[in-house]
């Protein structure tokens, strides 16, 4: 770690952003903005500068002050807190900004800022902090404001992320694994003398060992393996055989045979095979169930919506929970806030950014009396709306209410499709050999041949190779920034023929944008503009300022910011305006044909031009598209206008179908139409406007530049920088399925050897006890080696 007190650095001491030419200096440290400096001030006043000792520049740049009035409402507090007694309350927040050990240190020392927050614990991987506080000394709102002040604003949404994810790991399964493992270990111990042959001395213990083994088999069969019996029963009831059916039969046969040989004292039982089998099966299940702690795949509109909104009653502002909004309520929507329900505009100048809902980049203006749909974000002054539909019934919410998602389009996985043939094969062999021995008149052999065939033909490898292979692939994926929901989804990924792209945010990047200036500015005028922009915290102003990179800043007079429109001020005696076109102080002929977006500049009533922010195509798009063109049908569904069509035509094949101005429902319908033509569709999208399509597609990938940002419900989340690797990911999942099939062939050859002995009724328990682990070990090592090999071959592993 470099010395954190170095002052001659070119980055902000707090957030690590590159310092602008004009920087703030406080306490011999440089800061890029007032926000960063104020966080430092708070921390240094509270003697918490250790925050900067554990990591360099650990901070986050602070956004605007949030409105947390709603956290004073008792009904909302009651929804959020986990626990409350006479003095103390405990609350858990999801804080996306948590990213390093300094964050842990700072958030666990909140008591230094306010002693009433007496305990705070972080779960780093889940990015959650659990805070205990004295609620008569500090309110929930104050707690959140403290967090906000130091740059860790909690994400409080309608769908409380914290509570929904509570049960991600199935604790009961771990209990079962523990018990099965415990019983297996002990049974192995007591079976060991049997493996080496019993001496005369040991013979006296044989009975004891057998009964102990049987005792250990009871909890394993009736508790640990219970699910297999219930699942098999349920599937037989529906006249359908799943993989659990033969497994349940084998467990039952093993247990009955062990019980009979113990009770009648005729030879060793199969206790070791039984416990080992159940333990391994449960392990496979556990591997399959493991998912990511820190990523939620099932978010819907509720995690995009805030938990409360300001309403106006008798001219007084009152925060109300979204779920309690009724038709006729007056809502007050401030700049940057979200419209939570379909409503009519009553007052104010509404410019709504609907990009998240429709994909359209330009904000839309609404006139008084017009209906405003939920999901739009107000850009500009505060507006008043009257609710016409409650939040749960809005146009946007309707996307999630449809019942017909994901019907039969998903492919049945390899295991279930093969289980049927497998089971039938086992039954045929078992009954034929039983029948043969009965016909020969050897009843004892008939019974032992039947049980032996069933035991040896155990599809345990089938139940293990799939989860082990696919979860190994998952971990390869996640190192490369591709987070797939579960192992079933990997199988879907291998079986697709159509890829549908969204445009904005998917093919283009929201982060890397290029600032271009159309017009004429002298270097001196550039400085004037920069001096004006320097006073604004609007993201566009900051971007343009960064592009201008001024050498000095003049002081400014009569600075005025009209929220959502622009800024103006007098610099060096000249009047400067910067902002959107509709905010221009005069109608300017030269600007008529220009687009509204961007930063338009006027100096002394002369229109100078416009800084426009061009979205850039993501890196590696062209090779990606040409690669995918070979094997897949491609399609573009964009919610935006067709202004980029010529550029898209250059990247895609000319024959590629491209649809523009698509509403979320149209996108969804388009995916359904493709599926109706028996296409297996992968959808790549980013926003809420793609949510329906992502959900309906056979495999939906949400692209994001920050894994912790909101992403709609999907099968996989991919970081934007990994998009170019998509063909490699698909190839690896295909190779994974090949691996599973090969391991199935290996297992079958083992089984055939076993069956050869089994049909003769000469299977000794020891052989079964050795054959099963050997085949399991072979398979698991084969799958992991094969996955490594394929990962390297596909360039996903060095």
């Amino acid at each position, binding site marked *: 770690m470099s010395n954190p007190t170095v002052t001659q650095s070119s980055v902000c001491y707090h957030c690590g952003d590159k310092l602008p030419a004009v920087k703030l200096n406080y306490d011999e440290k440089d800061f890029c903005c007032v926000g960063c400096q104020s966080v430092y001030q708070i921390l240094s006043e509270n*003697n918490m500068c250790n925050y900067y000792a*554990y990591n360099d520049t650990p901070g986050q740049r602070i956004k605007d002050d949030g409105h947390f009035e709603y956290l004073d409402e008792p009904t909302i507090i009651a929804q959020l807190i986990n626990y409350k007694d006479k003095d103390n309350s405990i609350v858990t927040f999801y804080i996306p900004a948590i990213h390093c050990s300094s964050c842990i240190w700072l958030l666990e020392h909140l008591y230094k800022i306010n002693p009433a927050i007496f305990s705070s614990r972080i*779960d*780093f*991987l889940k990015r959650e902090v659990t805070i205990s506080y004295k609620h008569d000394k500090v309110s929930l709102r104050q707690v959140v404001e403290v967090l906000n002040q130091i740059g860790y604003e909690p994400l409080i949404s309608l769908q409380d992320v914290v509570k929904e994810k509570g049960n991600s790991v199935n604790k009961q399964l*771990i*209990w079962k694994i523990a018990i099965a493992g415990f019983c297996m270990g002990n049974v192995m111990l007591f079976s060991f003398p049997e493996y080496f042959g019993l001496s005369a001395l040991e013979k*006296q213990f044989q009975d004891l060992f057998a009964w*102990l083994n049987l005792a250990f088999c009871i909890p394993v069969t009736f508790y640990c393996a219970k699910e297999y019996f219930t699942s098999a029963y349920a599937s037989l009831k529906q006249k359908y055989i799943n993989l659990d059916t033969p497994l349940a039969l084998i467990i039952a046969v093993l247990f009955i045979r062990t019980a009979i040989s113990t009770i009648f004292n005729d030879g060793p039982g199969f206790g070791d095979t039984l416990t080992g089998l159940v333990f391994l099966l449960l392990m496979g299940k556990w591997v399959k169930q493991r998912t990511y702690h820190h990523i939620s795949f099932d978010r819907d509109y509720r995690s995009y919506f805030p938990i409360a909104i300001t309403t106006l009653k008798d001219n007084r502002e009152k925060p109300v929970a979204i779920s309690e909004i009724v038709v006729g309520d007056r809502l007050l929507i401030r700049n940057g806030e979200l419209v939570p329900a379909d409503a009519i505009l009553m007052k104010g100048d509404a410019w709504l950014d609907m990009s998240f809902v429709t994909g359209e980049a330009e904000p839309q203006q609404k006139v008084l009396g017009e209906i405003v749909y939920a999901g739009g974000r107000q850009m500009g002054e505060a507006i008043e709306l009257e609710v016409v539909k409650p939040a749960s019934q809005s146009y946007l919410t309707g996307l999630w209410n449809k019942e017909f998602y994901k019907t039969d389009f998903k492919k049945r996985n390899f295991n279930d499709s093969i289980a049927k043939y497998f089971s039938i094969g086992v039954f045929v062999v078992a009954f034929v050999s039983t029948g043969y021995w009965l016909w020969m008149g050897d009843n004892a052999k008939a019974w032992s041949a039947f049980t032996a065939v069933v035991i040896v033909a155990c599809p345990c490898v089938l139940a293990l190779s799939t989860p082990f292979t696919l979860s190994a692939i998952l971990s390869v994926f996640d190192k490369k920034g591709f987070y797939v929901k579960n192992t079933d989804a990997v199988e879907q990924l291998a079986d697709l023929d159509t890829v549908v792209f969204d445009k904005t945010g998917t093919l283009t990047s929201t982060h890397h944008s290029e600032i271009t200036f159309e017009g004429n500015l002298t270097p001196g005028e550039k400085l004037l503009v920069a001096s004006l922009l320097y006073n604004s915290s609007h993201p566009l102003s900051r971007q343009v300022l960064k592009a201008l990179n001024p050498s000095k800043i003049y002081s400014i007079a009569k600075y005025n910011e009209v929220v959502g429109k622009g800024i103006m001020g007098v610099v060096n005696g000249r009047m400067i305006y910067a902002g959107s076109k509709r905010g221009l102080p005069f109608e300017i002929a030269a600007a008529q044909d220009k687009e509204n977006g961007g930063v338009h500049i006027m100096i002394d009533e002369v229109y100078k031009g416009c800084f426009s922010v061009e979205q850039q195509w993501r890196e590696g798009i062209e090779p990606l598209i040409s690669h995918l063109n070979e094997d897949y049908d491609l399609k573009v569904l964009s919610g935006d206008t067709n202004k980029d069509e010529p550029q898209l035509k250059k990247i895609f094949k000319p024959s590629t179908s491209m649809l523009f101005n698509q509403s979320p429902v149209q996108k969804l319908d388009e995916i359904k139409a493709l599926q109706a033509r028996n296409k297996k569709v992968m959808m790549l999208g980013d926003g809420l406007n793609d949510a329906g399509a992502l959900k309906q597609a056979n495999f939906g990938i949400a692209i994001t530049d920050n894994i912790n940002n909101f992403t709609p419900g999907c099968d996989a989340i991919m970081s934007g920088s990994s998009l170019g690797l998509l063909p490699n990911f698909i190839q690896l999942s295909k190779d994974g399925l090949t691996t599973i099939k090969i391991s199935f062939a290996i297992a079958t050859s083992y089984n055939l050897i076993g069956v050869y002995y089994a049909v003769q009724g000469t299977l000794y328990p020891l052989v079964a006890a050795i054959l099963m682990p050997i085949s399991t070990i072979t398979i698991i090592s084969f799958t992991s080696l094969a996955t490594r090999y394929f990962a390297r071959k596909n360039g996903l592993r060095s």
Partner: protein
Amino acid sequence: MNILYFLIGCSVLVALVFLGAFFWALKTGQHDDVYTPSVRILFDDEVKNDINEKSDKNHISD
């Protein structure tokens, strides 16, 4: 060799104790967060250091 009966009983009992310990750990949430404690343990506790320094100074002045 009858002592073996007793020893086997003991071994099962000890194993059961470990199983119980595992369940206790699982129930009290010790496996819920397997990362943060590894970071937390490395933080220095400043408050305690201050007290130590003061008490040291007191010793010297005494």
